[in-house]
C-alpha cells in the first residue's frame, strides 16, 4: 500500500476560509449554518440507522430475542422519533435549503441571518433535551398516541419539550425562507424564473409555518395532562383519545409533504441538468407543489379509518386523499417527459434522482391501498404501511437528499466526489433498500402487525430476507459516507460549474465566497434553457 499523493489544496477556500470553533458557532453566513445543519442531521441519520439495524436483527427470530420486548419498543420509538423529527424534517430544508436558497435566487444571505443562527442553536438545544429523555427512554412509538403516552412511566414530558424546541426552530427557519424568497430575489428573477427547488422550498416553508404550531400545542397539552392531570386525552380523566390523533395528524400529515417536497425540488433541478433538456411542464410542477401543500391540510383523517372516527368522516377523508395523488402524478409525468429525447448523463446525482422516481412510484401506488377505505381496514397498522412509508420517505426523500448531496458536493466543498465509489454505493443502496422493504408489502398483506417485538413463526422467512437486505443497505450507506469524508479533504478541486448547469449557484466560485456573488447577477431568462430552441418546440 503506497500512500496516495497529497490532496491538492484549494486555490480559494471561499466561505470555508475562516477556521475554528468560534468562527463556525457564531457565523451568520447561511452557507456555514447550512453545513452545520447538514452535519448535525446526517449524524442523527446514522444514529437512527443503527437503531434500525438492531431492530432488524431482533426480527430475525420470532420469539424473545437478544433484547427484551421493552427494549425493542424503546428502540423503534427512538428510531422513529430521531429519523422523523431530528433528521428527515430538517434534513433538506434546513441544510441544503439554507445553503442554496440565497445562492439560487441570487442573494447574499437569507433575510434574517441572526434568526437563522438562533434557529440552529435552538435546534441543537432541543436535541440536547430530547437526549435528556433517554435517561428514562420513550416507549410510545413516534406517534405518542394517548392515553398510553399520558400513562407510561417514560419521560414523555421531557421529550415533548425537546421536540417543542426543534419545532420552534423549524417555524423560524420557515419564516426566514418565506421572507427571503419574497424579498431577496435578484433583479429580473420573476416568480416564473425561479428554480423549482425554490418553489418546493416555498411550499415547504408555508407548511412548516402553519402546521408546526399545532404539534407544539399538542405537546404542551400532553405535558399538561401528564404534569397537572388535566384530562385532554385520557377518558379516565374526561378526555378524548381521538382528539389527540386529530391534533397529531393535523400536523403529521402535512409534515410528510414537508419531508417529500424539498426532495421533489432537488429532483426537478437535477433531471434537466443531466438530461440537457428544459424541464417539462415548469408551471405544472411549480403549482403542483403549492397544490400538494394546500391539500395536505385536508387529508389527515386517512390515518384514522379504523380508529373509531365516524364512518362519514372516513368517507370524506378518503375522497379528499385521492386529490393529493393528482398533483403528485403530474410531477412524475413531467420528470419522465423531461427525459424524452434528452442527452442523458448517468452521473451519481442523476442515478439517485432516477432512483427517487422509481421508489416514489412504488410508494405512491401502494398508497392507493391505504387511501381506499375497504383495503385500508386490512393493511392499516401492518407492515404494508411500514413498507409504504419507507418507500416514500427512505426510498424517496432520502434518495432525493442523496441526489442533492452528490449534485451540490462540488459547490459546497470545492472538491469533486469519487464517481466510481459513488456509483458502487448507489448499487448497494438500491439493491439493499428494495430487498429490505419490498417484502414488507407481502408481510403486511399476510397480516403481520407493525411494532411487534415477537411474531408468529410463519412470518419469519420474509423477516429474514428483509434483515439481510438491511445489511446490504448499510454497506452502501457506509461506502457513500466514507466517499464524502474522503473527498471533502482529498477530492480533485472542482471547477465553478462541473455539471454545466444554468442555475445561479453554479455561476459563482466553488466553494462560493462569503457574500456569494462578486456582483449580484441580473436574471433575464428561466434557468432551464437547455437544448436547441425552435427544434420541435412546444
Amino acid at each position, binding site marked *: 500500500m503506497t500512500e496516495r499523493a497529497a490532496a491538492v489544496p484549494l486555490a480559494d477556500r471561499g466561505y470555508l476560509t475562516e477556521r475554528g470553533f468560534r468562527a463556525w458557532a457564531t457565523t451568520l453566513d447561511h452557507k456555514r449554518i447550512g453545513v452545520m445543519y447538514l452535519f448535525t442531521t446526517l449524524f442523527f441519520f446514522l444514529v437512527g440507522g443503527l437503531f434500525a439495524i438492531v431492530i432488524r436483527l431482533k426480527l430475525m427470530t420470532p420469539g424473545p430475542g437478544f433484547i427484551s420486548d421493552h427494549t425493542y419498543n424503546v428502540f423503534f420509538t427512538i428510531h422513529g422519533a430521531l429519523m422523523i423529527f431530528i433528521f428527515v424534517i430538517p434534513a433538506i430544508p434546513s441544510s441544503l435549503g439554507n445553503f442554496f436558497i440565497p445562492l439560487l435566487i441570487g442573494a447574499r444571505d437569507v433575510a434574517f441571518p441572526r434568526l437563522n443562527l438562533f434557529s440552529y442553536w435552538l435546534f441543537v438545544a432541543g436535541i440536547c433535551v430530547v437526549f435528556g429523555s433517554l435517561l428514562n427512554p420513550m416507549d410510545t412509538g413516534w406517534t405518542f398516541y394517548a392515553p398510553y403516552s399520558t400513562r407510561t412511566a417514560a419521560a414523555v414530558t421531557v421529550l415533548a419539550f425537546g421536540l417543542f424546541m426543534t419545532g420552534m426552530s423549524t417555524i423560524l427557519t420557515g419564516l426566514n425562507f418565506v421572507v427571503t424568497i419574497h424579498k431577496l430575489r435578484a433583479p429580473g428573477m420573476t416568480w416564473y424564473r425561479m428554480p423549482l427547488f425554490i418553489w418546493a422550498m416555498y411550499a415547504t416553508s408555508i407548511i412548516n409555518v402553519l402546521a408546526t404550531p399545532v404539534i407544539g400545542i399538542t405537546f404542551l397539552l400532553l405535558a399538561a395532562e401528564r404534569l397537572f392531570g388535566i384530562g385532554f386525552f385520557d377518558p379516565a380523566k374526561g378526555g378524548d383519545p381521538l382528539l389527540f390523533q386529530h391534533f397529531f395528524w393535523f400536523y403529521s400529515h402535512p409534515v410528510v409533504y414537508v419531508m417529500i417536497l424539498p426532495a421533489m425540488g432537488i429532483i426537478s433541478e437535477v433531471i434537466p441538468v443531466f438530461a440537457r433538456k428544459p424541464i417539462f411542464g415548469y408551471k405544472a410542477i411549480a403549482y403542483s407543489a403549492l397544490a400538494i401543500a394546500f391539500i395536505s391540510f385536508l387529508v389527515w383523517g386517512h390515518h384514522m379509518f379504523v380508529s373509531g372516527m365516524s364512518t362519514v368522516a372516513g368517507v370524506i377523508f378518503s375522497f379528499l386523499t385521492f386529490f393529493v395523488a393528482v398533483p403528485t402524478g403530474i410531477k412524475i409525468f413531467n420528470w419522465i417527459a423531461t427525459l424524452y429525447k434528452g442527452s442523458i448523463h448517468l452521473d451519481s446525482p442523476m442515478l439517485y434522482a432516477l432512483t427517487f*422516481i422509481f421508489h416514489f412510484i412504488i410508494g405512491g401506488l401502494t398508497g392507493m391501498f391505504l387511501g381506499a377505505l375497504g383495503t385500508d381496514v386490512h393493511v392499516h397498522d401492518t407492515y404494508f404501511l411500514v413498507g409504504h412509508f419507507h418507500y416514500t420517505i427512505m426510498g424517496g426523500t432520502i434518495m432525493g437528499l442523496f441526489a442533492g448531496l452528490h449534485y451540490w458536493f462540488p459547490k459546497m466543498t470545492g472538491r469533486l466526489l469519487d464517481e466510481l465509489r459513488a456509483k458502487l454505493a448507489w448499487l448497494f443502496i438500491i439493491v439493499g433498500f428494495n430487498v429490505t422493504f419490498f417484502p414488507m408489502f407481502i408481510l403486511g398483506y399476510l397480516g403481520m402487525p407493525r411494532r411487534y417485538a415477537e411474531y408468529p413463526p410463519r412470518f419469519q422467512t420474509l423477516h429474514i430476507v428483509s434483515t439481510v437486505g438491511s445489511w446490504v443497505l448499510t454497506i452502501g450507506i457506509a461506502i457513500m459516507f466514507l466517499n464524502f469524508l474522503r473527498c471533502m479533504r482529498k477530492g480533485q478541486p472542482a471547477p465553478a460549474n462541473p455539471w454545466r448547469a444554468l442555475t445561479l449557484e453554479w455561476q459563482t466560485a466553488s466553494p462560493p465566497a462569503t457574500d456569494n456573488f462578486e456582483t449580484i447577477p441580473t436574471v433575464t431568462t428561466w434557468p432551464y434553457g437547455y437544448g436547441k430552441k425552435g427544434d420541435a418546440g412546444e
Partner: protein
Amino acid sequence: MPALTFLHGEASRSAGEVDGAFIFIAAICIFFFLLTQGFLIYFALRYRRKKGEPDVETPYITDNHTLETVWVIVPSLLLLAIFAYGYVVFIDLKSPLAHATEIAVTAQQWQWSFTYPDGRTVVGELRLPVGRPVKLTMTSRDVIHGFFIPAYRQKQDVLPGRYTYLWLEPDRVGSYDIFCSQYCGTGHSLMRATLVVMPAAAYAQWVEQQEAKARQAKAGTEPLAEKGEELMEQSGCLGCHTVDGTPKVGPTLKGLYGKSVPLSTGQSVTADDDYIRESIVDPNAKIVKGFPPIMPTFRGKLSADDIRAIIAYLKTLH
C-alpha cells in the same frame, strides 16, 4: 370474486370482498407501474450518453398541454373508481348484520376477553359457531388497542371510555389469529387471541360444558385451586405470566410458591403467602430482578377470598 387464496385463506365473506378491492386496485397500480417505470427506464437507457461523448443536441420541448390534460383526467377518473370501490366495501364491512349474536370484547394490557350473552367470560379465545353472524361490542380498560383478524381482513381500534363495533360472518370452520394492531406497551406483540370457528353441534356441546362449570362455581362447590385458576384467567394474569416455566412480560408463576425470588434491589425474598398478596395489591413494592415495573394493581379488583384462591392455585404449580 377471485380471492387471493394462494396467499392466505378466505375465511369469511368480508375477506372475499376486501380481496376483490385489492385485486381491482392492484390491476390499476400494476398498469401504471409498468407504464411509468417502463418509460423511466426506457428513456434513461435509450437517450443515455456516455462520459466523454459530446452532447447530442436536444430539442427544446417545454410543455404539452394535451398530454398533461390527459394525464390529469384519466388517472383522476381511475382514482375516483378506486375511491368508490373502497367506499362500497367499507360501508359493507360497517353495516350491521341482521340477527347477529352480541359478544362483548374487553381489551386490556395485554389480553383479550370475550363475554358471551349468557354472562360467561373467556380470556384469549373467541369461540363461534360457523355460519351465524356476530356483533362484537368492544371497549378497553386502559389504553387504545386494535382488534385485527387478518383472515377476515377486519380491523377496528378498541378505545377506553367508548364502544366500537365489528360485525363478523364466520363462514369456515377453523382457527384464526386475533392480533392487537394498535401499539399498547411492553406486551403489545403478545396480545394475541384465537378465533375458533366450530361446527354448530360442537359449539353447543362446548357451551353446555362451560355453563355446567359456571353453575358449579356459583354453588360454591368448586375446589379453591380451580377457582383460583379461573380468577387468574379472568383477571388477565396470564397475559403477562405463564404457568409453564417460560418468562413472558412478567416472570413465570411455575414453581413460584415457596421459592426465593431475586429482587431488583439485589436482595431476595421468599415467595410466601404474604409476598404474593403484596405483589397483587401493590405490585411495585418489590420488583423481580430483570423485569420492568409495569404491573397494574389489583387492589379493589380481587377480594381477600379471591387472592386466597389464587395462592391455592399457585401452590399446585410445581
